[in-house]
């Protein structure tokens, strides 16, 4: 073998080793030495998601659909948000796939018209967001398992970017447990309409029997869950029930409280709606003979016997008000703001904790009526935390009102009630989540069982009493019952339920929320990843402000003109009508001309805005495309001539 052949062979070997080596290393070191340098850690999954992915037993497939080709073809201008968002979601999904150690497989599709990918997207009910030239725009995800379970996020909405990790983790979690889940409902009010089907209820109604309509929120829940009634004096919670909704519990017997306690200790998920004042959900029975009879009706509920063991309390007689979130009430003097009637979704969701995924993205009002507050109890068990989900703005506060002012037959008088309210300095919690290793509220075991044993002289049963949760658990406390009642949620039109607030969504979200694991609940909302051109935004904002001012000025002009015109008309009498009419015509022409000029001004301001943005683009483009290269060229020329001059001088010197 010649030396040339030998070294050629050596080169081939070296390159082969290089390629194979880098491939093997890159396959073998998938999760090693990874540093996320972004400020918000946007490429790092939260602890909760890692746990969910880590628990996966069977492999799942994530089918990710995005019509990148179509978006690119349509041009970037209108769709820039979507493309940026796509990159973010794609990267996040790739991180899921990478961190799952092979249990989550990511398949990315760019559905072309009439392709298999498009058919698959349609089959999985990924939303066809937009239709253009026979091509559909898809941007969604389906998580599928071999057993056929499918969880679909039909569309990734750029406005919902903070929740994307929650959505994906939820889909992954739910794809592993496809069975329909059972929700138990325990209430001192008849809110489920009994365990009967709609058909049975209709038949009974036709036979003239008295049937109670279930609350709308229960009907909505039935679409997603098996809803089971739990008696208000139940001594045991059916083990089939995984989620327990306790609504307006009034004086529950110890045995029932103990059953709820043990349900939570077993890892069951409890959502409790309690209220110090629930006139909408639990109205006083009407008695025409005694209009003030309502004052003796007790519409308060409490579960403090349990809550206080878990570190929180909902004090009775204390209501939450907020001057920023208060809503108007119809009164005899017209609509007046009532400080205890709140829209927690007002002012862009000012009453919702942005870090808790459960109440995000609600479209309509989230109404509460004289909610109570969730406060820290005298003793908080170690390691148990309370995280507010709904809370007032900093100016919100608690206040007290005499019962007779609330129970007046004409309804509460906003002026009198608002006078009792003093703005606060820190937000007050209306709903929240208790989490941690919760201790039992019955440290001595079953209150009934213990007595029996003592009386009968038997040994205390080696029972299955649990003194605390085995694993960390979460309990959701909402200090308002009215918000889930029909009065603040639905209108019934010809038997159909029409929600007028986001309250039912919130209630169902809560169940969905606890249906996920504690890990899922802790999946924090992601940091904002979009970084806009603030300078351009500022230009637009200023221009908009100016156009607004101008538009207001024009409108004022029009109004003034109309007022003048009508006053002229009222002054008109037989004699001067002709003169006035002539004046009016002249005046009208003048004002119309002025309005035209103002409109032109408006267009000019708009154009100025566009010009300012365009000139900014031109100058930055010029600086980078021509300015910097030109500077380099000039430096090069200068150095070149300098060198040449030096060389010439050196030559001259030598000569």
């Amino acid at each position: 073998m010649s030396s040339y052949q030998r070294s050629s062979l050596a080169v081939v070997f070296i390159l082969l080793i290089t390629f194979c080596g880098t491939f093997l290393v890159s396959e073998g070191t998938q999760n090693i030495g990874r540093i996320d340098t972004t400020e918000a850690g946007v490429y790092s999954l939260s602890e909760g998601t890692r746990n969910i992915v880590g628990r996966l037993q069977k492999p799942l497939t994530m089918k990710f659909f995005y019509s990148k080709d179509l978006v690119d073809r349509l041009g970037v201008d209108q769709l820039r948000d979507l493309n940026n968002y796509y990159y973010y979601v794609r990267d996040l999904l790739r991180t899921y796939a990478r961190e799952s150690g092979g249990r989550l497989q990511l398949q990315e599709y760019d559905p072309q018209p009439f392709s298999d990918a498009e058919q698959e997207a349609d089959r999985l009910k990924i939303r066809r967001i937009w239709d253009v030239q026979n091509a559909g725009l898809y941007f969604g995800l389906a998580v599928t398992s071999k057993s056929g379970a499918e969880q679909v996020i039909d569309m990734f909405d750029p406005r919902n970017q903070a929740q994307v990790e929650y959505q994906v983790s939820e889909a992954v979690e739910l794809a592993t447990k496809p069975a329909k889940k059972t929700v138990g409902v325990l209430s001192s009010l008849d809110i489920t309409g009994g365990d009967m089907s709609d058909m049975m209820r209709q038949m009974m109604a036709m036979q003239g029997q008295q049937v109670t309509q279930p609350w709308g929120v229960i009907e909505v829940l039935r679409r997603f869950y098996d809803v089971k009634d739990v008696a208000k004096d139940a001594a045991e919670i059916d083990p089939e029930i995984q989620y327990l909704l306790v609504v307006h519990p009034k004086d529950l017997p110890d045995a029932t409280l103990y059953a709820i306690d043990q349900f939570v200790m077993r890892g069951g998920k409890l959502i409790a709606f309690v209220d110090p004042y629930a006139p909408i959900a639990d109205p006083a029975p009407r008695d025409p003979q005694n209009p003030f009879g309502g004052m003796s009706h007790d519409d308060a509920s409490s579960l403090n016997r349990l809550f206080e063991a878990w570190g929180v309390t909902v004090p009775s007689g204390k209501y939450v008000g907020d001057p920023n979130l208060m809503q108007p009430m119809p009164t005899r003097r017209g609509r007046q703001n009532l400080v205890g009637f709140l829209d927690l979704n007002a002012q862009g969701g000012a009453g919702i904790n942005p870090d808790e995924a459960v109440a995000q993205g609600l479209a309509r009002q989230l109404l509460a009526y004289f909610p109570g507050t969730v406060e820290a109890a005298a003793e908080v068990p170690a390691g148990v935390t309370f995280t507010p989900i709904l809370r007032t703005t900093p100016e919100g506060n608690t206040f007290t009102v005499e019962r007779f002012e609330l129970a007046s037959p004409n309804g509460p008088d906003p002026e009198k009630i608002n006078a009792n309210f003093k703005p606060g300095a820190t937000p007050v919690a209306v709903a929240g989540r208790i989490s941690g290793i919760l201790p039992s509220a019955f440290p001595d075991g079953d209150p009934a069982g213990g007595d029996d044993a003592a009386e009968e002289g038997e040994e205390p049963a080696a029972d299955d009493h649990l003194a605390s949760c085995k694993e960390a658990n979460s309990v959701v406390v909402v200090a308002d019952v009215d918000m889930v009642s029909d009065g603040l949620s639905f209108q019934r039109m010809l038997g159909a339920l029409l929600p007028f607030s986001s309250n039912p969504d919130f209630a169902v979200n809560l169940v969905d929320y606890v249906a996920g694991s504690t890990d899922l609940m802790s999946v924090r909302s992601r940091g904002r990843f979009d970084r806009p051109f603030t300078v351009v935004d500022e230009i637009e904002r200023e221009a908009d402000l100016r156009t607004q001012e101008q538009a207001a000025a024009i409108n004022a002009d029009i109004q003034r003109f109309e007022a003048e015109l009508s006053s002229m008309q009222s002054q008109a009498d037989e004699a001067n009508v002709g003169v006035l009419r002539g004046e009016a015509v002249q005046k009208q022409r003048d004002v119309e001309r002025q309005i035209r000029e103002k409109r032109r001004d408006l267009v000019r301001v708009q154009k100025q805005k566009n010009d300012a943005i365009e000139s900014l683009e031109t100058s930055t483009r010029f600086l980078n495309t021509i300015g910097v290269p030109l500077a380099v060229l000039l430096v090069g020329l200068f150095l070149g001539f300098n060198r040449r001059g030096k060389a010439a001088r050196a030559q001259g010197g030598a000569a």
Partner: protein
Amino acid sequence: MSATTAVFKRELRGYFGTPVAYVFLVVFLALSAFLTFSQGFFQMRDASLRVFFANLPGLFALFAPAIAMRMWAEERRTKTVELLLTLPVTVKQAVLGKFLAGWAFFGIALLLTMSMVMTVAYLGDPDPGPVFTGYLGAFLMAGAYLAVGAFFSAMTKNQVIAFVLGAAACALLVYSGSPAVVDALQGIPLLGRPLARFVESMSFLTHFDVLQRGLIEFRDLFFMLGITGGFLTATVVMLDESKAR
């Protein structure tokens, strides 16, 4: 090591001694900025250098072989390579010195694109992490491309051939990771999946993309440095052989 430094200095001075370096810098700066702005950088209103970085793998595939082509081909054609290697310089030192000079030159070119960073910082509030890792990735990628170019330059005496081969190899290493190629490979029965995976992981796109998003991963750094080391070693072997002849 001083021999390497000497070669490095001589080469770097050599770049700036001719107008070629300035022409290169001007064209590179103008083209990279032009592509960035014409691909909707301003319309996206995203205060990041994503669009700018996205063009670099393609641009480097053109510019790195252009820088590297004269490294050895020229020396071999004018027979100065024999002269260089008779000096008290080992082949290894010469290869390393020339490579580092080319790399430093690329570093200067990248430094001059800082005007893009300033532009973005003026327009908005960019995340500094991805900007830093993007530049780190770009610099490492430039080194790897240069090593590939140096290898082909050492293979031939003709600069043009060196450039064409180098550019072709670089392009292959870039576009092997493009979705079109990966999709096509995945369609091959039986071997499709692993083959697509191999080819994709050999692509600069795959590795640079991770870096420019703000993620530093061991395997991406290893890929860039591994390719650099591998091709430089191959260059040394090639030149050793021609020295022996």
